[in-house]
C-alpha cells in the first residue's frame, strides 16, 4: 500500500460512505466521479457527476453537470468538501494524473478503490502544489479500512 503523511481527518457518515461505494460499483469497470458539498461541517449534498471519458483509467467530469453542481454549491453558500472518483483496478492512492490535474486545493480528493471487489477502500488526500498528504477517513467515528495493498 502506498502511503502519504497523515495530516488531519475526514468524517463521513455510513450512508454517504455506502453511497460512494455503490456509485463506484454502478458503472464498473469504468471510473465514476462526483462531488460532496458541506455546510457548517455537515454534508449538505452528494452529486454524482457523469464521467465524460467513461474509461477504466481516466475520468473527466461532464462539464455541464459539473457547472450546475458547482453553481449550486456556490449559490447555497456551501463548501466543496470533496471530489471523488473510483479506481476500479488499482489502489486508492492518487495517480500521477490525479496529482497533475488537482486544481482544487481546498477540496479533499477521495478515491474509492474496487481493486478488492469484496472489500472496497476509500481514502482521502489533500493535493496541493503537487504534494500529497492523506486524511484519515472516519465513518461514523470509526476509522475506515485502508486496505492491505
Amino acid at each position, binding site marked *: 500500500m502506498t502511503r502519504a503523511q497523515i495530516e488531519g481527518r475526514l468524517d463521513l457518515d455510513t450512508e454517504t460512505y455506502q453511497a460512494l461505494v455503490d456509485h463506484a460499483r454502478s458503472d464498473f469497470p469504468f471510473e465514476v466521479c462526483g*462531488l460532496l458539498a458541506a455546510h457548517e461541517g455537515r454534508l449538505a449534498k452528494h452529486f454524482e457527476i457523469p464521467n465524460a*471519458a467513461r474509461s477504466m483509467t481516466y*475520468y*473527466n*467530469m461532464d462539464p455541464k453537470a459539473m457547472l450546475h453542481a458547482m*453553481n449550486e454549491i*456556490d449559490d447555497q453558500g456551501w463548501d466543496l468538501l470533496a471530489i471523488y*472518483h473510483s479506481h476500479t483496478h488499482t489502489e486508492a492512492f492518487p495517480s500521477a*494524473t490525479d496529482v497533475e*490535474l488537482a486544481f482544487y486545493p481546498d477540496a479533499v480528493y477521495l478515491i474509492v478503490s474496487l481493486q478488492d471487489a469484496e472489500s472496497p477502500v476509500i481514502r482521502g488526500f489533500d493535493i496541493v502544489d503537487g504534494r500529497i498528504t492523506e486524511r484519515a477517513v472516519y465513518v461514523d467515528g470509526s476509522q475506515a479500512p485502508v486496505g492491505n495493498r
Partner: protein
Amino acid sequence: MAIEVRVPTILRKHTDGERMVSGDGQTLAQLIEDLDARHPGMRDALVDAEGQLHRFINVYVDDEDVRFLGGLHTPLADGDKVSILPAVAGG
C-alpha cells in the same frame, strides 16, 4: 456593457477573494483582456503561451461550454453570465 463572471476559488487570489466580478468585451478574448487589466494574472490563468484557452480550464457562457461555441472568439452580449471552472479530471 457589463458581463458577470463567476470566478473559481483557485483564481480568487487574482480578484481579492471576490467570487463574482464584472468585465467588458464583445468576445471572450476581449473580456479576458479586460479582466486581466482589472485583475492582473487572469490572462495567464486562462490562456496558454500559444494564445489558446488552457486545456483544463472550462469557460461557459450562460450554460454552454465555449468549446462548443467559438472558443476565444465566442461573441458576448450585455448581461451574459460567464463561468470559469478548472476541469475535474484524473486517472
